[in-house]
C-alpha cells in the first residue's frame, strides 16, 4: 500500500521502523516536522533541546549508550552544532547516529542558504541525499546501517523541496512497527575512543582517515548511487531535488544519480564519464560534486558542464533548469517538453501591480505593542535630518509612508531624546523589522542581539541600545550573551519577548513552555529567576498590550546605567486563542485619518472611506490600537452590539 507522505514525515517513519529510540533537535524550517511526527510514535524518547549543540550532544550520548538515534536541525543549526559534530566524527558511537540537516535554498524562511554538504567533507563523515519521500524513508534506514558498520555519524541532507514535498511511499499500515528495542547495554567504557585528549585524538585522527578509505570502497558499489543509461551524448551527474528536475528536462539522457555524495564515488563517476560525450553536473547551491569531479584524474579533455550553466545562487525550478540547458545548447528547445519553456510566453509573466502580501505579526500578537513603542523611540537619521544629537549610526530605510504620519513626526523630540538602536534576533518578531514598524537595526543569527548590543556600546556608539530576543531564542543562545552583559559592564537593555513557545516554526515547546514535545508536563525554566540568578538586578515582567507601561519601562530601563532585562510576557495568540466577546471599533467621526494605528501593522485594521476601520473577525481585543490612538477614536465594543447595528 502506498501512502502520501511529507519528506519529513517519511524520515520520521523511516527512523521509527529502523528502531530509532531517541531523537533530539531544535525546530527550524524546513526540518521541524521530522521530530514532531517522530514524537507521536509509541515507546520512543524525543526532545526539543534548548539548541542544536545540546541536541547533538544528547544524541551522541544516546548513541554511545547503544540506542539508535536521530538528531534534526535546519542548515544553520548545524553551525551551532558544529563542535559536537566534528567531535563525534572522531569518536564514533556504539549505535547508529544520523544527523539530519534540512537546507533552505532560496531562503524561504532562513537568513542564509549555505550548502551543508560541505560539512560532510569538512568533518569527513558520510553524506546521504534523498530526492523524494520514499528515499527519505529508505535512506534513514541505510544511514543507520552505515553509521553502525563504519562507526561514524552520518549526515543526511534534505532541502526545502525534499522535506516539504509529499510523494508516495510504499508502506503498509501493518508494517509501521518498530523492531524490538534492544535491551539496555552496560556502558562500554572505552576512554581511548571517547576521551579526546590530544594523545587519544591523534590516534582517532588516523582512524578517521582509515574509515574514509573503507567508506570509499563502500560508496563505489552502494545502490544509493546508480546509473540509468540513455542517450550517451549527455551524461548527467546529479543529486537531491535537482535529480527530479533534470529527469524532466532531459528525458533521454544518461543519468548517474548520486544518493551518497561523500565520500564521492570517484571510480563510478570516472567510469560513467568515460562512456558519455559531455558530462553535465546539475546540483543546487555550491559546486560540491563539480569541484571534486573536475579534480578527478583521467577525465582528460572530456567536456564537463556545471556551474557556468546552472546557477549557484537560489532555488532551482524545473523551468530554470530547462531554460539554462536550452540557452547553453545542451538540449534543443524542440526536445524539451513545451510546458517547461512556457515562461517565455506573454501570459506567463507575473501580473503587474499586485499589492504585496508580506508575512505579518498576527492580529493579537503579543509582540506588537513592544515594537510599536520601540518604533516611537528609535534613532532615525533620515527623518530627523539631523543625526548630530545622537552621533554614531546612520539609520536608513524609513519610508515616506511612516514619515507622513503626523503622529510619528510629532515624536521627533522623543526620538532625539532616546535615539534607540535596536539589535534584533531570529523568530516571528523579526517581522518587527518590516515596514511600517521598521523597528530593528540588526538581525544576524540565533542569540546575536545581545552580543551585538554589547559590542555596539564597546565600539563607541553613544545611542541607547536595546536587544530584542524571543524566549526560545534566548534559551537557545541568548543566555551566554547575557552573561557577557554582566561581566563586560555593559548597560544593555535586553527585552525578552516571552510567548511560551517557538512560534515561527509552528508552536514547538521550549524550556519555558512547561511541556514536552509529546505534550506531557515538564519542569519550566523561569526566565526572571534565570536572569536574576545570572546577576541582572533590574528584571521587570510586563504584559505586551499595555503600551503606556511598555513605554514607561523601556524609557526607564534605557536611561539606567545598569544592565536590565524586560520580560514582555503574552502567550502566542496562535496557541491561546482569544475568546473575547469584545472588539475594537473605530468611531468614524473621531478618526482624523492620522494613520497612527496603522503603524502597528495590525492585519485587523483596514482603510475604509478615508478612515480606519476594524475587521471584527480578525480583532482579538488586544486593545493596542485603542491605547495608542491619539484622538481616542478607537473604542471597545461588544461583538454582539456590532452585529445588531449591521
Amino acid at each position, binding site marked *: 500500500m502506498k501512502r502520501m507522505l511529507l519528506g519529513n514525515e517519511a524520515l520520521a517513519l523511516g527512523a521509527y521502523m529502523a528502531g530509532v529510540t531517541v531523537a533530539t533537535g531544535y525546530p527550524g524550517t524546513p526540518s521541524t516536522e521530522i521530530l514532531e511526527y517522530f514524537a507521536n510514535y509509541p515507546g520512543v524518547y524525543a526532545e526539543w533541546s534548548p539548541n542544536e549543540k545540546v541536541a547533538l550532544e544528547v544524541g551522541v550520548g544516546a548513541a554511545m549508550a547503544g540506542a539508535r538515534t536521530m538528531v534534526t536541525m535546519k542548515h544553520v543549526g548545524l553551525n551551532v552544532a558544529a563542535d559536537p559534530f566534528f567531535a563525534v566524527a572522531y569518536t564514533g558511537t556504539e549505535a547508529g547516529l544520523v544527523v539530519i540537516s534540512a537546507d533552505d535554498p532560496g531562503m524561504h524562511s532562513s537568513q542564509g542558504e549555505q550548502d551543508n554538504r560541505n560539512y560532510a567533507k569538512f568533518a569527513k563523515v558520510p553524506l546521504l541525499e534523498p530526492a523524494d519521500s520514499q528515499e527519505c524513508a529508505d535512506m534513514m534506514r541505510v544511514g543507520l546501517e552505515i553509521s553502525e558498520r563504519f562507526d561514524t555519524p552520518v549526515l543526511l541532507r534534505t532541502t526545502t523541496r525534499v522535506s516539504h*514535498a*509529499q510523494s508516495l511511499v510504499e508502506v503498509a499500515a501493518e508494517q509501521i512497527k518498530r523492531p524490538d528495542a534492544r535491551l539496555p547495554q552496560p556502558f562500554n567504557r572505552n576512554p581511548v575512543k571517547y576521551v579526546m585528549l590530544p594523545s587519544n585524538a591523534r590516534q582517532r585522527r588516523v582512524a578517521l582517515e582509515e574509515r574514509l578509505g573503507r567508506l570509499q570502497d563502500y560508496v563505489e558499489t552502494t545502490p544509493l548511487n546508480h546509473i540509468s543509461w540513455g542517450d550517451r551524448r549527455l551524461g548527467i551527474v546529479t543529486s537531491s531535488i535537482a535529480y527530479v*528536475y533534470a*529527469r524532466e528536462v532531459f528525458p533521454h539522457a544518461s543519468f548517474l544519480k548520486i544518493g551518497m555524495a561523500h565520500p564521492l564515488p570517484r571510480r563510478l563517476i570516472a567510469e560513467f564519464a568515460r562512456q558519455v560525450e559531455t558530462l553535465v553536473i546539475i546540483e543546487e547551491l555550491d559546486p560540491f560534486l563539480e569541484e571534486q569531479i573536475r579534480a578527478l584524474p583521467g577525465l582528460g579533455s572530456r567536456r564537463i558542464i556545471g556551474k557556468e550553466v546552472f546557477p549557484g545562487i537560489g532555488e532551482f525550478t524545473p523551468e530554470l533548469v530547462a531554460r539554462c540547458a536550452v540557452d547553453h545548447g545542451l538540449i534543443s528547445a524542440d526536445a524539451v517538453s513545451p*510546458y517547461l519553456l512556457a515562461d517565455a510566453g506573454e501570459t*506567463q509573466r507575473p501580473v503587474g501591480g499586485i499589492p504585496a502580501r508580506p*508575512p*505579518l505579526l498576527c492580529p493579537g500578537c503579543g509582540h506588537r505593542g513592544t515594537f510599536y513603542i520601540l518604533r516611537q523611540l528609535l534613532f532615525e537619521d533620515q527623518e530627523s535630518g539631523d543625526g548630530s544629537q545622537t552621533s554614531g549610526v546612520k539609520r536608513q530605510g524609513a519610508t515616506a509612508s511612516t514619515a507622513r504620519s503626523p503622529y510619528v513626526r510629532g515624536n521627533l523630540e522623543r526620538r532625539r531624546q532616546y535615539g534607540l538602536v535596536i539589535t534584533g534576533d531570529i523568530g516571528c518578531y523579526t517581522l518587527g523589522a518590516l515596514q511600517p514598524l521598521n523597528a530593528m537595526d540588526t538581525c544576524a543569527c540565533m542569540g546575536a542581539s545581545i552580543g551585538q548590543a554589547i559590542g555596539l556600546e564597546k565600539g563607541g556608539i553613544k545611542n541607547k541600545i536595546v536587544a530584542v530576543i524571543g524566549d526560545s531564542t534566548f534559551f537557545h543562545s541568548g543566555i551566554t550573551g547575557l552573561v557577557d552583559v554582566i561581566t563586560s559592564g555593559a548597560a544593555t537593555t535586553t527585552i525578552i519577548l516571552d510567548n511560551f513557545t517557538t512560534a515561527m516554526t509552528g508552536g514547538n515547546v521550549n524550556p519555558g513552555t512547561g511541556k514536552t514535545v509529546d505534550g506531557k508536563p515538564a519542569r519550566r525554566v523561569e526566565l526572571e529567576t534565570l536572569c536574576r540568578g545570572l546577576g541582572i538586578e533590574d528584571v521587570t515582567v510586563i504584559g505586551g498590550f499595555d503600551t503606556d507601561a511598555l513605554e514607561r519601562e523601556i524609557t526607564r530601563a534605557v536611561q539606567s546605567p545598569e544592565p536590565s532585562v524586560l520580560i514582555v510576557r503574552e502567550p502566542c495568540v496562535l496557541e491561546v486563542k482569544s475568546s473575547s466577546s469584545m472588539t475594537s471599533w473605530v468611531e468614524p467621526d473621531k478618526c482624523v485619518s492620522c494613520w497612527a494605528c496603522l503603524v502597528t501593522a495590525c492585519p485587523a485594521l*483596514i482603510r475604509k472611506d478615508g478612515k480606519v476601520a476594524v*475587521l471584527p473577525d480578525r480583532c482579538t481585543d488586544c486593545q493596542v490600537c485603542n491605547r495608542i490612538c491619539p484622538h481616542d477614536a478607537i473604542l471597545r465594543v461588544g461583538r454582539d452590539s456590532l452585529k445588531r447595528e449591521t
Partner: protein
Amino acid sequence: MKPLNFILTGVGGQGILLSSDILCLVGMAAGYDVKKTDVHGMAQRGGSVISHVRLAEQVFSPMVPVGAADYLLSFEKLEACRWAHYLHRDGVAVVSDEAIPTLAMEAKRPYPDDDEIAATLAARAAHVRILPAGTLATELGNPRVANVILLGALSRFVEIPSEVWLNAIAERVPSKFRELNRRAFEVGREI
C-alpha cells in the same frame, strides 16, 4: 493518462494545505502517481501561500512549472491574480470571491476592484469561475466548508468521477462533518 497540474493559492490560514492534501488523495485513488509541495514557515504568517500538486503516470518534480498549470484553485481573489501566470492558455481558474485586504499602512497599490480581477483572470485562463464560496458555506451552516465548495466547483473540470472526490474528502474530515462536506461538494459542483 493525461498529466494534470494544479496550483492552489490563498492566504496563510485559509485551509489551502488541507485542500491540496485532499486533491492528492483524489489523484491516488484515480490511479495517478502524485507529488505535492508547498512552503511552510514564514510564508504562513498571513502571507501569500502557494501549493503545487501534480498527477501523472510518473511524476518527477513536485513543482508545477510556470505556464504549465491546468488548474488554478484560489481561496482569495487577489492571490488568484498573483499566481495566474502559472496557468497555461487553456487553463481553468476556480476562485473564491473572498477578499482579504493587504496591509493598510503600506497600501501603495489599492486592492483591485472586481472588474479588474475578472479581466486579469480572463486574460490568462480559458475558463474562469469566481464564486461566493464563503457566502455559500455560511448558508450551509459552516464557513469552513468554503474550501470543499471550491473543490466541488473544480471537480466539474477534472475528468475524475465525483465519488472519488467524495471518498477523499470523507477520508480527511471528521465523520460528524461528512454529510455537511458532501453537501458542500455538491453545492460547488452544481454551480
